[in-house]
């Protein structure tokens, strides 16, 4: 059952990346190609998922929308994980005043619920793809920092670290060659959930009009679709399903990986 979840989740992740990479080949039309006289036409043989108010092909926009989700997800997770690993390992290994300082910053950032700070930052910085990634990464690293710090605090007291220290290994070498290898599994699990969270947050920001401008994004498509809920519900249904399937896939993957690699009972 867990393996099935992992396989299903991995397939969704692969599908997202493949769709993002192959968007120009997969999309039947250009996502920006307008046909105003065909506006709000429902699904047909030519346009499988219908056309929006500008006559643009919904399927093509969904396919290109995968690019925005994949870019924001991967960039946010990579930046957040790198900052979080750096802060968490320094904080956990050295402790003291540095640890106190980092953890108070973490406390302050965690004082903001959910994506509130991302909404505020995106609003202040201006709506763009780069600012969405920046806003989400500025908050995303906190979870990784806490996780890595906790793991390093446990690992640094173990015999193999003491042995490396006794052999004269520098703190940098101990952290990079020994500690990080041993904390990588929970970080990978966290990154998988992080992809789901980043994709959901990007879609939320785009829905609120704070996301990437002039790029087809699933959240922005939902925002546009809300005005035509009565006459063209497909404009809301399909982008929402795309977000749901993608986020569900990454959550399945994260759940499965956690059970397979982090829960001792399930391993046994």
């Amino acid at each position, binding site marked *: 059952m867990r393996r099935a979840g992992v396989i299903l989740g991995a397939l969704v992740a692969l599908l997202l990346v493949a769709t993002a990479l192959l968007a120009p080949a997969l999309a039947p039309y250009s996502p920006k190609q307008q046909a105003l006289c065909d506006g709000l036409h429902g699904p047909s043989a030519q346009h499988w998922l219908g056309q929006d108010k500008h006559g643009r092909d919904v399927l093509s926009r969904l396919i290109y929308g995968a690019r925005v989700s994949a870019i924001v997800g991967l960039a946010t997770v990579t930046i957040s994980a790198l900052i979080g690993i750096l802060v968490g390992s320094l904080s956990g290994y050295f402790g003291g005043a540095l640890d106190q300082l980092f953890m*108070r*910053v973490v*406390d*302050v950032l965690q*004082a*903001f*619920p*959910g*994506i*509130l*700070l991302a*909404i*505020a*930052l995106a*609003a*202040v*910085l*201006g709506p763009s793809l780069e600012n969405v990634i920046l806003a989400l990464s500025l908050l995303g690293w906190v979870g990784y920092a806490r996780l890595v710090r906790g793991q390093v605090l446990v690992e640094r007291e173990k015999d193999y670290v003491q042995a490396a220290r006794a052999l004269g290994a520098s703190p940098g070498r101990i952290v990079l060659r020994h500690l990080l290898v041993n904390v990588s599994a929970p970080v990978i699990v966290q990154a998988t959930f992080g992809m*789901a969270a980043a994709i*959901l947050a990007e*879609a*939320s920001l785009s*829905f*609120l*009009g*704070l996301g990437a401008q002039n790029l087809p994004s699933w*959240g922005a498509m*939902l*925002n546009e*679709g*809300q005005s035509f*809920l*009565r006459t063209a*519900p497909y404009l*809301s*249904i399909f*982008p*929402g*399903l795309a*977000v*749901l399937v993608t*986020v*569900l896939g990454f*959550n*399945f993957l994260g*759940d499965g990986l956690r059970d397979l690699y982090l829960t001792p009972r399930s391993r046994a």
Partner: protein
Amino acid sequence: MRSYLLKRLLLTLPVLIGASVLVFLFIHLIPGDPVEVMLGESASPADRAALRHQLHLDEPLSVQFGLFFSGLATGKLESIFYREPVSRKVFARLGATFELALAAMALACLFALPLGIVAALRRGRWADSLSTGFALLGVSIPNFWLGPMLILVFSLKLGWLPVSGRGGLYHLALPALTLGLAMAALLSRMTRASLLEALSEPHLTAARARGLSEPRVILKHALRNAAVPILTIIGLQFGALLSGAIITETIFAWPGLGRLLIEAIQTRDFPLVQGSVLAIALTYVMVNLITDLLYTAVDPRVRLEGRA
């Protein structure tokens, strides 16, 4: 106990100050001239100078910091769009957000607690799988999609409930369901996990050995022990509902704090953005603090650990 309370309160202070400083700095993160961003390029030099003075942007940063908070407290910090004190606008919307969050929480509890209990008692069976599936689906469904879908079915197709606005229970149903689903998903998992842990405790075996009936063992002993972590999650999630309310209020035109924030962003009313963000963050911190303190009050183990 008193020293724990004091320590916990003292630990909250730097967080509150840090959050406030961050919100204060927002206006300085705006690329370019914040006054031009707020008023637009066509604003006259006199209007720009007046706004710069009103926001104290012509003062040194340290002075601005003091004036920002005294302005918020005394009601002198005004919304650019509404020409009203930011604090008044924020307080006027707080009630609607609390009403929505409370309704969402009540719905979530009503649904999640029985589901979690059944899942724990039927571990490994179809009810448990159903609960797991519901939890994963619940946290994955975007509320900005669930809301419109509920409107589509219950308002536009069936005509049972209003599309938007604030009024009686009918108006509250769809926004509360939209906001409460993710919480229900988390809560059902937490209830299941807590009850499973409580069911494995040795004193339950002892209770069964004494001849107590199974419903009595579950209701009187297991659920009582499982209640503390469940209540904690309810408290902590209530704080999280405040951020979820931003999107839900936007979908249903619910006149709460979240909608005020989005309106302020759309009208580039940055003092109001600052005030709304600060109000949501402070409420979140305070709700979490109260939950933490209540948790300490109900669970003797936490008090004893603090003493040790």
